[in-house]
């Protein structure tokens, strides 16, 4: 074990995700069963070895109270396990598992995230889930809020509508190499700009698709990570920060919480091979990249990002999986993964990953 890897160093050693689809005909648990099994198999462990399990999902999506309890069946109903759940993206389940591993008494953890947005009407649902008191009665849906954010960004001159279309075109192009993406292809920026607005100044392609799917990963600590994986994706730092949820109380053209989380995670502005940013709206990728101050040459969202596959409650975790995959296959040595939660980038998590 290299001198710089100690017992409090934690790494991704296995992962799996299912291809995002517009509408899965299976239940959320059925989607999770093969994904969790594949992640555990890749890690090379028996599921009975797992010291802690944490999941992220949202019961609002399918309207099934305590759906997250049934989801646990995919991790095995017997023998009993130590587990927890966050009503958040799976990236925050990973954060909890990382904290749990730092206690030092267990060596491995399973993390998964899943969502079936197809069962609901997301633009009606999210205002109720995110803010039923102030914003939902006004009928403000996430796409409308993102439209306000996009207009605010355009007004600063830091991006144009063409820049947003170029984000989308790059996402679709990168997604050509991603077997899990839902939207992929070569698209012409001028053709995108000719599309009508759905929430001015945003067009349909500026919004992530409605997706069903699931993802899982396995974390291991110190020596165990070394044993399980030739080149683990070490978590060099991970942090999350939040801002007031009312959009009127924040500067929507920047993401102070992302910048702070990156700093606390140890990102020093140095070179990055890859940055996987969780931006369900094109304008948010621009805001995030600028707030992080990504250096020139960083490969941003080589997977296509959330504009290509938007599995709510797993899309943030998938950013960490995609960044880890590039560390583990040797194509990257330093990567930054970001996840967001809440409305208009309210709550942000940054995870800095390295190979060694």
């Amino acid at each position, binding site marked *: 074990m290299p001198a710089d890897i100690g017992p409090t160093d934690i790494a991704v050693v296995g992962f799996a995700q299912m291809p995002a689809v517009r509408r899965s005909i299976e239940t959320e648990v059925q989607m999770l069963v093969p994904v969790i099994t594949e992640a555990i198999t890749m890690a090379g462990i028996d599921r009975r070895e797992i010291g802690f399990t944490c999941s992220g999902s949202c019961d609002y999506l*399918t309207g099934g109270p305590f759906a997250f309890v049934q989801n646990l069946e995919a991790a095995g109903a017997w023998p009993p396990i130590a587990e927890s759940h966050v009503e958040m993206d799976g990236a925050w389940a990973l954060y909890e598992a990382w904290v749990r591993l730092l206690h030092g008494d267990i060596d491995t953890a399973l993390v998964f995230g899943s969502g079936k947005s197809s069962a609901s009407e997301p633009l009606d649902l999210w205002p109720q889930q995110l803010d039923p008191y102030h914003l939902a009665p006004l009928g403000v849906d996430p796409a409308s809020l993102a439209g306000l954010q996009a207009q605010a960004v355009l007004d600063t001159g830091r991006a144009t509508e063409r820049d947003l279309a170029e984000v989308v075109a790059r996402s679709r192009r990168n997604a050509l190499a991603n077997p899990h993406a839902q939207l992929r292809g070569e698209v012409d920026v001028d053709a995108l700009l000719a599309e009508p607005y759905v929430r001015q100044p945003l067009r349909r392609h500026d919004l992530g698709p409605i997706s069903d799917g699931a993802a899982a990963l396995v974390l291991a600590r110190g020596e165990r990570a070394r044993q399980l994986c030739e080149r683990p994706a070490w978590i060099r730092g991970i942090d999350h920060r939040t801002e007031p949820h009312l959009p009127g109380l924040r500067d929507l053209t920047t993401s102070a919480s992302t910048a702070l989380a990156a700093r606390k995670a140890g990102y020093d502005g140095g070179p990055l091979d890859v940055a996987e940013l969780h931006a369900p709206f094109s304008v948010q990728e621009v805001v995030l990249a600028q707030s992080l101050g990504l250096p020139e040459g960083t490969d941003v969202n080589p997977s296509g990002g959330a504009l290509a596959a938007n599995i709510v409650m797993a899309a943030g975790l998938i950013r960490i999986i995609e960044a880890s995959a590039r560390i583990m296959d040797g194509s990257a040595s330093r990567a930054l993964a970001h996840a967001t939660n809440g409305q208009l980038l309210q709550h942000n998590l940054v995870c800095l990953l390295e190979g060694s």
Partner: protein
Amino acid sequence: MSVAKEDLVMTHLVSLTYRDTLPPTLNRFVDGLFDGRIVGHRCPSCRRVYVPPRGYCPLCVVTTGPDDEVEVSDRGILTGFTVITPVAYYGQQATDPFVHASARLDGADTTLVGVDITGVPHDQLHMGLRVRAVWKPEEERTAEGITSRGWGGVTTFIDSFEATGEPDADPKDYQEHMF
């Protein structure tokens, strides 16, 4: 300084619409119920039979499919029950005490939950009682009680269960299968 204030009250009615698509596994279960048959999945690993079928075995964590389909009996064992005395809360339609029971069908390792037991005085209900399904007439059967979300029962196909008159089951046949 005091300012006269009037409370502003705003009514905000919330409704959310869901589209619950039954997975193929449950569709086949429903098809069987329309025909008066009850099907489940037998785990290829541990051989347990799940009714309704889930498409996987939660104990072995393996997927199951049409090849694992088995038909079980519409007779079984009363494994647990509650006699509920209705309270007149908003929306409650029942007025008389009723039964909420679980039944392990012959050939199944899981129980059907939330079934009614009729024809047996409530003070004579007991675990181990042999019961059989009282099916609704074919033209009255609907799938609206079946959901993919982990609850919902077969009450839109089976009105209730009644005693068969057979001797009570051996406790070993239900003590590991009560819920």
